[in-house]
């Protein structure tokens, strides 16, 4: 199965693909022969940390994911929660940390594009975007450029697509100097009985590619997202993906139009590891095989080879399985929106992924064994001990409280974020409530044509997580919960983005374990299950790891929009009341 002009497999090539020698042994076992480069590439992305969650899976399983309101927990493109009156809210948060450090505008923009697709893939119209951002020290030479680029990129994409960006958070700490965090969350609303899933079924059904053409973008992005940076990362700059929000807007409208019919069997966006992970996951969930004719893949550039097509991370693309015989009807919808549409394969009963190009088989891999053998590690972890209590009276009293207050208000972590959210269209779609605009505890977005609303927030305080991961993880959940309750909402469920350093270091792994345990305990105590999430590891440069940053995104429901409140002290003479300890 080796292709002409192909280098022989060497330990170097295997290592370049991010596979350990033990993992490569498993590849040989599964294949029963040496893989060719295309097949190795497929293993490498499928088994990357990004796609396989190999370090975190064991711990993610401990999170509470069920509840009477949950329609779909983790494992699909996004979580789905029942909100009554025939509707469901669909949401997820996702990181785009590494790409945003390399090219802040495009990295952040394509991060927003990716999470939007995760949500409308499930049949939901996106109604709100949020983000959680972490940068290095304000006067670090790179920070200004990174902040400006990331904020412009988030706005550039979300504003153009026409989904309001209604909230988020920004923190600064030297620990993020070499690894910024860009986490983006999308919330959508769908009819509760018309949720779309990625499970491919129906032997012989056509596999259809829609959206933009495939280029040589971000090949190996998924593997990069799972590797540490070093001194020459700046030099190795891989081809960066460029987002096209206009095409995404058309894709949203075309997909929702198609979803209003009964033509779709399964659908999945092509995210990290593009065509490989989407086709693999769809077939694996449905227990089918899949045959793809790569000659049919719409390509942007001439001379693209199968390896590039399968690993490209070009944006604004989706893969669907249609009911047989409906291709022409579906195609007409995509043509109306000027989008590419191509039948590129079909489902088979072989349990294998067979790739052909130029009339020849160029790749042939078993699906289940590859997916099931995807590594799962119980990495050694070392707990961070509870720090000693600091008595409040052991700290010097400020000489001038006015001065102290000014200093607090002017500190980068507390200063006004107006400069950020004024660059986001936070009102488009006409449902952002007046006191649910950015600047309050949580965003309030009316459910269109109703008097109910969603309350949404993202929260995490990384320095708490560093001091004691378990407490910090629990605190992030509690803070998000309080932010929702403060607007008058009833919290429903949460999503989470686990951002950590290198999990192969026991100390870092201990942070992850602690944060997840704290998060889980708080979610259980507050009856707020986690329905989706994302993990971003290896956020470290030259051994300097970021602060443990388990971001929580939480969604709540308001039954009557007349009965919500904001934070404005709107008139003189009102009483201020302090609640709690």
């Amino acid at each position, binding site marked *: 199965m080796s292709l002409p002009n192909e280098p022989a497999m060497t330990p170097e090539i295997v290592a370049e693909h991010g596979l350990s020698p033990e993992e490569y042994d498993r590849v040989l076992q599964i294949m029963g022969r040496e893989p060719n480069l295309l097949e190795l590439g497929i293993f490498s992305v499928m088994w990357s940390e990004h796609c396989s969650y190999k370090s975190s899976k064991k711990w993610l399983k401990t999170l509470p994911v069920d509840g009477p309101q949950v329609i779909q927990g983790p494992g699909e493109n996004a979580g789905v929660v029942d909100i009554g009156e025939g509707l469901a809210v669909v949401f997820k948060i996702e990181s785009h940390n590494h790409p945003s450090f390399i090219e802040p505008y495009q990295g952040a923009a394509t991060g927003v594009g990716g999470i939007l697709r995760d949500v409308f893939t499930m049949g939901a119209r996106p109604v709100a975007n949020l983000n959680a951002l972490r940068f290095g020290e304000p006067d670090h030479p790179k920070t200004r450029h990174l902040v400006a680029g990331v904020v412009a990129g988030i706005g550039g994409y979300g504003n153009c697509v026409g989904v309001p960006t209604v909230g988020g958070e920004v923190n600064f700490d030297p620990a993020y100097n070499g690894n910024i965090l860009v986490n983006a969350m999308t919330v959508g609303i769908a009819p509760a009985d018309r949720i779309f899933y990625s499970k491919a079924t129906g032997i012989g059904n056509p596999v259809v590619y829609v959206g933009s053409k495939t280029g040589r*973008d971000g090949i190996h992005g998924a593997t990069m997202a799972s590797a540490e940076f070093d001194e020459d990362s700046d030099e190795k700059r891989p081809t960066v993906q*460029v987002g096209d929000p206009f095409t995404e807007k058309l894709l949203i409208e075309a997909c929702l139009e198609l979803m209003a019919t009964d033509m779709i069997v399964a659908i999945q966006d092509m995210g990290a590891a593009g065509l490989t992970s989407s086709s693999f996951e769809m077939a694996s969930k449905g227990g089918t095989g899949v045959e793809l004719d790569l000659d049919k893949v719409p390509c942007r550039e001439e001379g693209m080879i199968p390896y590039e097509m399968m690993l490209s991370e*070009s944006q604004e693309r989706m893969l669907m399985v249609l009911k047989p015989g409906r291709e022409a009807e579906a195609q007409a919808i995509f043509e109306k929106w000027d989008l590419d549409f191509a039948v590129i394969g079909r489902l088979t009963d072989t349990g294998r992924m067979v790739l052909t190009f130029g009339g020849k088989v160029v790749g042939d891999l078993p699906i289940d064994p590859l997916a099931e053998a995807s590594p799962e590690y119980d990495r050694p972890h070392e707990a961070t001990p509870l720090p000693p209590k600091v008595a409040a009276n052991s700290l010097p009293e400020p000489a001038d409280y006015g001065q102290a207050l000014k200093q607090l208000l002017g500190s980068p972590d507390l200063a006004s974020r107006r400069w950020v959210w004024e660059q986001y269209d936070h009102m488009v779609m006409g449902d952002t409530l007046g006191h649910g605009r950015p600047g309050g505890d949580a965003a309030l977005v009316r459910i269109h044509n109703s008097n109910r609303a969603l309350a949404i927030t993202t929260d995490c305080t990384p320095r708490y997580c560093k001091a004691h991961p378990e407490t910090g993880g629990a605190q992030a959940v509690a803070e998000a919960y309080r932010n929702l309750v403060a607007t008058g909402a009833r919290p429903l469920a949460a999503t989470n983005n686990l951002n950590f350093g290198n999990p192969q270091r026991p100390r870092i792994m201990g942070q992850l374990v602690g944060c997840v345990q704290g998060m889980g305990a708080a979610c259980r105590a507050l009856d707020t299950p986690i329905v989706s999430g994302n993990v971003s590891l290896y956020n470290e440069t030259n051994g300097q790891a970021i602060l443990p940053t388990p971001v929580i995104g939480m969604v709540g429901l308001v039954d009557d929009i007349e009965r919500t409140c904001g934070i404005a002290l709107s008139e003189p003479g009102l009483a201020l009341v302090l609640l709690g300890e």
Partner: protein
Amino acid sequence: MKVKVFVTLKSGVLDPQGKAIQHALGSLGFSGVDEVRQGKLIELNLEESDPGKAEASVRDMCEKLLANTVIENYRIELEG
């Protein structure tokens, strides 16, 4: 000295604007047009009159600000 800087997307990088322009030209009835790419032209005036020094300084400006060298190439043209 007048200087022109041409900033273009590296080949292989998606150019959504070029794509949209090409499509619009098609709808306007112009046929036989392809490979449309949009770049930037930055014109500036430099006090420096030594061509070597001017070029070096503009190159520095490109690296630091005018071009995003992750996805863009640049070309400098000095004028008399």
